[in-house]
């Protein structure tokens, strides 16, 4: 238990036997809210604090709404930090043999250099470049130096995907997966894969933090993510950002602060990225609103049926998904819908992968991370504001990931051509022209 508490900052009320640790002095207590600042997430924005009459402190009590999903922290909450002995870190870590392409090997070495030099690093690799495998050797390197590593990612889906892969790659290491609702074993783990929210449970705990899909955060969380990362790592710990679509801000920071930079414009199989094509459909929205399937879309679906190719069809809103699903099913019956609040999301993706379903109609929830061999993709109403350039690049990245099906159709159906659509296509074309 004591080793579990190391590096963590938790609500005393949720820790068993906390009294004995307080008495022994191994644990330090701090009030949850101090001087207008939440001591768990470091929020200082008054708009996210709420004051009410609390029955426990029998007076005005303030709590932080920013990090409330992790459990409410209020003026009467006591947070505890471990101040006792540091756990002896394990040393017997091993990594299973990997098969990396030259480009992956090079990026892996570059990352190790940055970590050794305590320098931040940006791993800019296109969808399907094999980013996860690139991380393994640098992680091993850190673990062997008895460092504590955390891989943070915005979504629980990704944590659940990475966890078994890490366990397999590092058979002698106790890997821990942290996400809302997870069963957490009360044991010290030197390698943690967690959702970024979970980082708030730590303070000065990690010697290396790897932020996966750094660009996948909604704008309002940008600042909170930075605070969470900075708080969870030790002051000199380097941060590695992994993404296929770095924001201008991230690239600027990388250049200005002289981070390490690895660039992989090619997929692990070396083939070029499929370039999206635009299909202009006049009165697209009106047709869909009248429950009419535009001919171009009908033909596209028909082709998928004839060629027996699995497909993903993206739509901007849940309402449109529900409206269009029957229209699509009239052409291809083996199709289901998936969206963010769908609890059967994982199962449906598995069904598509296994061939039980021919297609999925989905929202941007499936824009990244998902791999289906020979999948073809259509983005309907690609001119909707929700499809920014990054999203379109990520969606296009679903196609052609397997070396035998390295090309595939990625079509943007829209009434007009937006700047985002142009930018996404330009980005992909540019990546394809980089000399490797």
């Amino acid at each position, binding site marked *: 238990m004591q080793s579990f508490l190391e590096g963590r900052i938790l609500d005393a009320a949720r820790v068993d036997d906390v009294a004995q640790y307080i008495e022994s002095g191994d644990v330090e207590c701090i009030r949850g809210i101090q001087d207008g600042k939440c001591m768990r997430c470091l929020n200082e924005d008054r708009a996210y604090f*709420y004051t009410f*009459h609390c*029955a426990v402190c029998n007076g005005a009590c303030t*709590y932080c709404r920013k990090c*409330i999903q992790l459990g409410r922290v209020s003026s009467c909450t006591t947070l505890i930090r471990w101040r006792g002995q540091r756990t002896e870190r394990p040393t017997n870590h091993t990594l299973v043999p990997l098969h990396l392409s030259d480009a992956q090997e090079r990026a892996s070495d570059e990352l190790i250099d940055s970590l050794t030099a305590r320098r931040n690093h940006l791993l800019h690799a296109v969808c399907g470049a094999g980013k996860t495998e690139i991380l393994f050797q640098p992680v091993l390197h850190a673990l062997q130096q008895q460092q504590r590593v955390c891989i943070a990612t915005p979504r629980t889906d990704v944590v659940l995907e990475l966890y078994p892969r890490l366990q397999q790659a590092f058979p002698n290491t106790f890997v821990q997966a942290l996400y809302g609702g997870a069963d957490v074993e009360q044991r010290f783990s030197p390698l943690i894969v967690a959702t970024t929210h979970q980082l708030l449970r730590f303070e000065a705990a990690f010697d290396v933090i790897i932020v996966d899909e750094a660009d996948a955060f909604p704008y*309002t969380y940008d600042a909170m993510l930075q605070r969470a990362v900075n708080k969870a790592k030790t002051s000199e710990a380097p941060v590695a950002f992994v993404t296929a679509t770095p924001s201008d801000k991230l690239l600027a920071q990388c250049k200005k602060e002289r981070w390490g930079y690895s660039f992989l414009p090619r997929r692990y199989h070396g083939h070029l990225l499929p370039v999206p094509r635009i299909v202009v459909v006049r009165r697209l929205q009106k047709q869909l609103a009248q429950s009419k399937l535009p001919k171009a879309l009908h033909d596209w679906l028909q082709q998928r049926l004839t060629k027996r190719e699995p497909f993903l069809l993206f739509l901007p809103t849940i309402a449109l998904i529900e409206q269009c699903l029957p229209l699509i099913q009239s052409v291809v019956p083996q199709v289901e819908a998936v969206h963010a*609040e769908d609890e059967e999301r994982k199962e449906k993706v598995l069904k598509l992968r296994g061939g039980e379903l021919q297609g999925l109609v989905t929202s941007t929830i499936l824009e990244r991370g998902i791999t289906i061999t020979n999948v073809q993709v259509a983005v309907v109403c690609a001119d909707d504001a929700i499809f920014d350039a990054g999203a379109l690049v990520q969606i296009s990245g679903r196609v052609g990931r397997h070396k035998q099906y390295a090309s595939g159709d990625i079509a943007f159906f829209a009434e007009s051509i937006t700047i985002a659509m142009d930018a996404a296509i330009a980005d992909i074309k540019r990546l394809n022209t980089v000399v490797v």
Partner: protein
Amino acid sequence: MMCLLCDRPFQASSSWYDVVLRKFPPVICERCRESFEAAEPNDDVEALFTYNDAMKHYIERYKFGKDVALAEVFRSDIYEALRNRRETIVAVPLHRERLHERTFSQVHCLLEAAHIPYANILKKVVHDQQSKKTLAERQNNKNRFLLQGEICIQGQEFIIVDDIYTTGATVGEIKNILLSHGATKVSSFVLAKVKSNKNYLV
């Protein structure tokens, strides 16, 4: 202005009606607003909404997540429904231990946020939790509440307010107490009512 539920920025509409006549500016966005379903009229209880998924999540965050700020989400609806009632409004209370555990009483905060005055004439003497009970257990509820204070019940009319109505066991118990002390009319009002064909109780 950030939506209290989804934390997305939203513009509160500003028509003349809103500025002059509406008492409370909205705290949630249109999208979140539309996720709630109005209740169907029924004879047992006056309910604002039906207990759908959105309401279930709201109650989880507000009551169990202890996000007191969310008391404001439905303040306009509660205000419009309960203002200018001639009956005395009474909120279903929490047991003192539950109040200590939760730090606030969810029903009282809903009424306070809506600026609806109420009378504190009830106290809960049994420390149990309705949401954890089966149907059979709920039908066997007895003597969980007592009257307190000096208010006169005889000849008065009351509205009992609670957050969720599932079987009506809770408001039923309180109704009986009030009637047995001479109340001439007792009705109930809840934020959300569970659809009767849904099986939340096995």
